[in-house]
Structures are given as C-alpha cells and as structure tokens.
C-alpha cells in the first residue's frame, strides 16, 4: 500500500500545482485568452481531485461541463469581444491591493479555522469503500432530490432562453424588419 500512498501524494501535489498555479494565472494573466486557458488547466486539476476523491462520475461531469462547455463558451465570448483587448492592457483595477489584502485575510481566517476544527470523520471502514455506483446517484437524483433536480433543469432552460434573448437583441430587430419586408 505504501506505493499507492506515495503515488497519491505525488499526484495530489502535481494536481495542486496545476489547480492553484492555473488559478493564479487566471487572476493575474494580462492576456485574457491565456487566463481562460489557465482556467481550463485549473479545472483539469479539479478533475484530478475528484478522481482522487473517488468521485469518478463527478470528475467526468466536470470535464464535460466545465472544460467542454463553459470554457469553450468563455473562449468564444473572449473572441467575440476581443477588439478591445490588447494583451498589454492593464487588467487589474485600482482596488486590487485592497482586494489582495482582504483575500489574504480571508484565506488566513479560513485556514486557521479549518485547522482548529475537529472534523467528524467517518470511521475507516466506511472511508475505504465509498464506491458509489452511478446508478445510485441517478436514483438519488430522481428520488429524494427529484424536485431540486427538476428545478435545476428548469433553471438551465431559463438560462438558455434568457441567454439567447439577451445575446441576439439586435439581430431580432433586423429579423422583424426582414419579415416585414418580405410580407409586403
């Protein structure tokens, strides 16, 4: 088991480097496109975390939705609004140092609290076998969590429709003009 443990720690360190390094690049990079790519790196690290935590399904969902959908969406919108973004533009505002201070303090407060707290960790046996079959997860989603699950679905639908409406306002006008023109 020693090898596995060593491997786990090794992988954890690498993933942490990916996640936090990527995260730092996201918030500090001057080039927004690079920031978005760093976000992908960081999220990929989180995927690795999920695998380490035996949440394989979540890892894949994370890959599918964050990297496959959200990141692509962000990259797309960066390109759509890119006329303004010369890479050399200053990317942080005047309050960044206050923000940094506040964030650092938040971090310290959280860390101190985390390390002081005694967590009610489950007993070892349960820890060793947390393997949750996907089918169980699926049943949970349509069983006890059915209503929130449906609400999330509706939320997604609403977001979808809202996004379309918001993003194509101008086109819509043209469209109605075109219709009016064709019907004459």
């Amino acid at each position, binding site marked *: 088991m020693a090898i596995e443990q060593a491997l786990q720690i090794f992988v954890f360190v690498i993933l942490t480097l990916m996640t936090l390094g990527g995260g730092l690049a996201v918030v500090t990079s001057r080039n927004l496109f*690079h920031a978005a*790519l760093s976000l992908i790196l960081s999220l990929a690290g989180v995927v690795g975390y999920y695998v380490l935590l035996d949440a394989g399904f979540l890892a*894949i969902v994370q*890959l599918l939705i964050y990297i*496959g959908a959200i990141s*692509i969406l962000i*990259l797309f919108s960066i390109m759509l609004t890119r006329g303004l973004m010369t890479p050399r533009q200053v990317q942080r505002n005047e309050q960044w140092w206050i923000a940094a201070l506040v964030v650092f303090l938040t971090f310290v407060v959280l860390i101190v609290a985390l390390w002081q707290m005694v967590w009610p960790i489950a007993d070892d046996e349960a820890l060793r076998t947390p393997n949750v*079959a*996907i089918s169980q997860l699926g049943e949970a989603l349509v069983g006890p969590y059915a209503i929130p699950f449906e609400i999330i679905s509706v939320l997604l639908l609403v977001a979808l429709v809202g996004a379309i409406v918001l993003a194509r306002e101008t086109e819509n006008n043209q469209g109605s003009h075109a219709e009016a023109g064709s019907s004459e």
Partner: protein
Amino acid sequence: MEALIRWLVDTFPPLSEALARLIVYVLYSGVLAFVAPVLIVVAYTYMERKVLARIQDRVGPNRAGPLGVLQGFADAVKMLTKEDVTPACADRVVFNLAPVLATVAAILVFAVLPVAPGVIGADLQAGVLYVVAIGALGEVAALMAGWSSDNKFALLGAFRAVAQLIAYEIPIVLAILAVVLAAGSMQLGAIVAAQDIPFALVLPVAFLVLLVASIAEIGRSPFDLLEAESEIVAGYHVEYSGMKFAFFFIGEYMHLFASAGVITTLFLGGWRGPLASSDSLLGVLLGFIYFVVKTTAVIWIMMWVRGTLFRIRIDHLLDFAWKFLVPLGLILVVAVAVALKLPAVNSPALRWIALLGANVIAALLMMIVISLLARRSRSAALRAVAGAD
C-alpha cells in the same frame, strides 16, 4: 491485463502486486501514446489514399515500397524535415500547445476502449460519458490553434470547428444514450458484454445517427467545413507546418480511429466474435483482431462517404444537426426507454424486438414530421412564387 499482472507477480517474486500493476499500465499507456499513433497514421493514410484512388478510378500511391505501402513513412519523413514556421504575431505558447493538445485529446479516448478481451486502460463506470467529455478537449485545441495563429482564416476555421463540434456532440450523446439504455450501463466493458446481438442490428437508427455525427465530429467530408480549402484555406491549422502540423495530422487519424473504435464498441460488439475470450492468449489476440477488423470496416465506410459525397454548406450543416439529428435522437431515446419498460418485455428475444420496434417507430415519426414540414415549406415557396407573379 489482470492475467499479465498475475504472471508478472508470479514470475518475478520481488514485485509486489501494486508495482506490477503500475508497470503494466505504464507500459500499456506507453504503447497507446507512442506506438499506436505511428502505426495508425501510417496504415490508415495508406488505406485512405488507396481507397479514394480506387473510388476516383486512380492507382494511388505506388512508388514507396511494394504497392506503395511505405508511402506513410515517406510522408512522415518529409513532414519531419520541413521547416518549422511560427508566424511572427502568433501567441507562441498557445500556438505550440495546441497541436499537442489535439493529439493528446485523441489518444485519451483509447484509455477506456476495450480493444481486446480484458485489455482496457480503465473500465470507468461512466466510460461512455468520458468518451464524450474528452471530445471537448479537441474543441479547445481547435480554438487555441485558431486564435493563436493570428490569422483570420484560422480564426474562422476555429469558429466553424467549434460550432460544428458542439452541434454534433448532442446527437452523439443521444445516440449513445440509446445504447446505454439498452445495455443498462455506461461502462464500455459492460456494453460490449451486453451485445449478444450487435446493437447495430437492434438500434439501427442510433447507429446511423452516431455514424453520421461521428463523421462530422472528426471533421471529415462531407462535413469538412473546418478545413475547407476553397473557403478558408485550411482552417485552424493553416499556419502550421512541419512537426506541429504532423501532430494535428496524427491527432486527426487517431481521432478517426478512436471514433470508429467507439462505434465498433457500442454498436458492433467490440472485440466479440467467435472464440474471442480473455481466457487464453489466442482468444485475446483473436478478439483484438476482430476489433481492428470491425473498426477498419467502419473507417472504410467513412472513406467511402468521403469519396462519394460533396461538402455541404455551413448553415445546412448546422440545420442538419439541430433540426434533424437532435429531434430524431430525442424521439429515439424516448421510444427506447418506453420500449424497455413495456410490461410485456420479459425475455431477451422480446427485448431485442421491442428495441427494433422502437427504432422503426422513431424513424417513421421523424419521416412523417419531415415530410409534413417539407410539404409546408414547398407550398410556402410555391405561394411566394405565385405572389411574385
């Protein structure tokens, strides 16, 4: 794999099981990452050239080696010795990373493909989902390449690529979902095990949807808009040359093989065939051969399509995905789910029949809808013509 691990532990006693496992999996991934790409690219470029030549009534490659079999190696040497050009305005880091990511994305799919009985990188519980998810990395690579080249054709190509890939990912997921419903699992190994009859026979509609969508997903003709020479030169990799282009090239063929492999696994019974089993080395080898043969057959169909059909327009392409494949897939999934839950379905044979019936119903429904819509648009067009007079 388990057999190999056991054999290693038995033969070299100092090896612990964990270490042996590590060694075996590292070796396997080494094979997938370094050996397979070269072999696949060399073999299938040759095949593609030959097949296309045959369709177009030409001879095809015939100089390098007997019957030109070494053509692929010749290409490789040419590619590697070319000058590696990076555009002055390119975003260097991203520009260099993109081809690597494209290749890696294609190779990663192999991790969950059961290429032979018992030989699989990781039989994930959500293996099917993993396949879909990894496809997204390819999109990122395309976007990176297109953006970093600082070339409008490249950027347009990237946009097209992503629009197309996103659009066709949905029918793929739907078709796969039908299979998952039928097999009752998302694990690729279990799906292979569930195919006493290849799913292509009981879920023909899903098979066709997946085939068509896969062709689009890997950007081959008639869906090769992302690199349409006559429109946007070569798409997102227009600025690439030499070694980096080779990476894209490898990635493309790996992707081709991987997609065909996924279709084989999901619909054609994977490695299954007479005498293939994980008990003996022979059985394993036989299974591997079945897998390769089936995959090659799928690839051959894709090549055939490429040689026969012409490229379609971008709006038609997206319309086809959103207005035909997605609704069809949705109907199909519902039909399959209902068919499987029918109270009368209580024996395997009945299951197959019910599934087939669901497919037929889905196809018929879609046809009816399409014909109604077509009639409406036809009469609208007629009215427009009449109005113009």
